[in-house]
């Protein structure tokens, strides 16, 4: 059986940038290797300036590696044909303000060689997917940050790529917009599309990714399956609903009787501020929309 071609293969990538004032070039990426298999959702995390965006740009052929190679589905990133299979959403994207959302998608579709009825259908489908059908005829100049991100995601998907690269997809977006983008990433995963995203919002990465890499000062410091990386091997979590205090006391007594086990904490789990915000705004929204 032949080996499956990785969706992304970055081998020993090094990228140096010339600096105006320093003689020593700035090393933005230092010997980074990443392998993403088809269907995986990979998150590259790291602080600002750690080399995340440069790695993505090298993968897209926007910057040339100083050393090492990048390939998309086995095709060299520096070759134009490698981009047939990839969609890219840059950080804080700005599209042509003079075009409407629909015209924007049509423009990118035509660049990918899609024409006629196929293009029309694809544009309609994507506008529905990103929930921008109502704003499709509005000029991009009047779009909110969240709408820009969503139209950006739609343009990335226009030619039905097998790999989608997202650079800080929720940067500057409010929690509702952020949730919508995350839901879209889940949909992509369900469709078997490989997603390579970078972010410094760790909670978001944890929620959507199955593989992560931690990059710091240009170097890959940790990489692997998310579950393996974050699991605490010697601990077990037990969450109960509507438990009687007597039952809890009984469990605690059982644990105390065991010579090896130790109860580390017990109490009411907390929701996240984000979940609270989403729940409250949803309740408020449904109350306002009640028939009077």
């Amino acid at each position, binding site marked *: 059986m032949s080996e499956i071609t990785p969706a992304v293969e970055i081998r020993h990538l090094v990228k140096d940038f010339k600096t105006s004032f320093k003689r020593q070039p700035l090393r933005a990426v230092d010997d980074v290797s990443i392998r993403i298999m088809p269907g995986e959702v990979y998150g590259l995390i790291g602080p600002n300036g750690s080399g995340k965006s440069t790695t993505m740009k090298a993968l897209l052929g926007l910057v040339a590696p100083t050393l090492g190679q990048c390939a998309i589905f086995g095709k060299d990133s520096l070759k134009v044909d490698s981009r047939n299979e990839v969609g890219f959403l840059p950080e804080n994207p700005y599209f042509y303000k003079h075009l409407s959302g629909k015209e924007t998608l049509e423009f990118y579709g035509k660049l*990918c060689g899609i024409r006629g009825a196929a293009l029309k259908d694809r544009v309609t489908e994507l506008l529905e997917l990103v929930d921008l059908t109502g704003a499709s005829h509005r000029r991009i100049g009047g779009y909110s940050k969240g709408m820009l991100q969503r139209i950006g995601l739609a343009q990335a998907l226009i030619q039905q790529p097998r790999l989608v690269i997202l650079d800080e997809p929720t940067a500057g977006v409010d929690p509702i917009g952020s949730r919508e983008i995350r839901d879209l990433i889940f949909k992509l995963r369900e469709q078997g599309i490989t997603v390579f995203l970078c972010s410094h919002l760790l909670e978001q990465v944890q929620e959507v990714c199955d593989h992560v890499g931690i990059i710091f000062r240009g170097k890959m410091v940790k990489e692997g399956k998310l579950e393996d990386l974050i699991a605490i091997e010697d601990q077990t979590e037990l969450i109960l609903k509507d438990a009687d205090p007597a039952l809890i006391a009984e469990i605690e007594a059982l644990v105390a009787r065991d010579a090896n086990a130790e109860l580390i904490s017990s109490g009411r789990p907390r929701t996240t501020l984000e979940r609270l915000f989403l729940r409250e705004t949803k309740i408020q929204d449904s109350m306002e929309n009640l028939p009077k």
Partner: protein
Amino acid sequence: MNPLPANAGIPDHIARITVIAFHAFTQLVRMKVFYFLAFFALILIASNFFNLPQHEGPEAAGLDVLRAIKSWSLGAMTLFSVVLSIVSTALLLPKDVEDRTLYTILAKPVPRLDYLAGKLLGVLLLIFVSLAIMDALMTGILHIRTNMVLADQMGFAKANNWTPEEITLLKKDILDLGPSASLQAAVFAVFLKATIIASLALFISTFSTSTLFTTIIAFLIYFIGHFQASARDAFLSQQAGMSDSIFAKIVTLLVALVFPDFELFNVIDAVIQGAILPLAILGKLVLIAILYAVFYILASWLIFAKKEF
């Protein structure tokens, strides 16, 4: 999920270039650049009321107005097309880089040469459409005015009992100053000149750090281009025996590449005076414009292909 069919081959390059060209054209149109046509209309109307002190006899009355309409119109066309070609080209590339729209375009299967060629063609399409509108306005006004002058002069000739031969000659002189194929060729020569300047501006913008730098350098080269041939010939004639040397030929070629010889386009002035623009000269101008455009696009591509974003 199967990817949609990807383009390959020359027809697909042409299709992609066309998409980018029409997009650049739309972008410039929506920047309301066509407002300058209102200024052109004003210039055209003003040229109708232009009257130089009459030094010639009454048989030449009105001919100055015909010359003025052509001179003012072609002058305005040259000015607008040069400004449009430099400013539009200097603006489009840096804007895409600043707005990061370039990332999303180059992340699609778009070769960088297609992108450059598309942007240039978009600017040229805008200039062509602008010139066509200005040309239609000029030709219309000139046609009406020529008929008016012709009617006046025929009345004058008949009142003074001119011979039929003299009348035919007068009629020819007037019609030569009216709309003609040579006048259309002169407008096309203005377009060719703009083509060279736009491709030059595209080349500069690939290594320039700002729109302002591109604009200033392009205008500078444009003005130098108007006297570079004379300056070169004067220099070579002073250096005895140098004009035939290989060194002189290389220097001449390099100077001609950096500073296109715009003196060649002075034939437009002769057309204003009623002269005919020979096809051979027009053909030469077409060839020169194509050569410069191809050279500058390829030079731009060499720089742009290695550019990192």
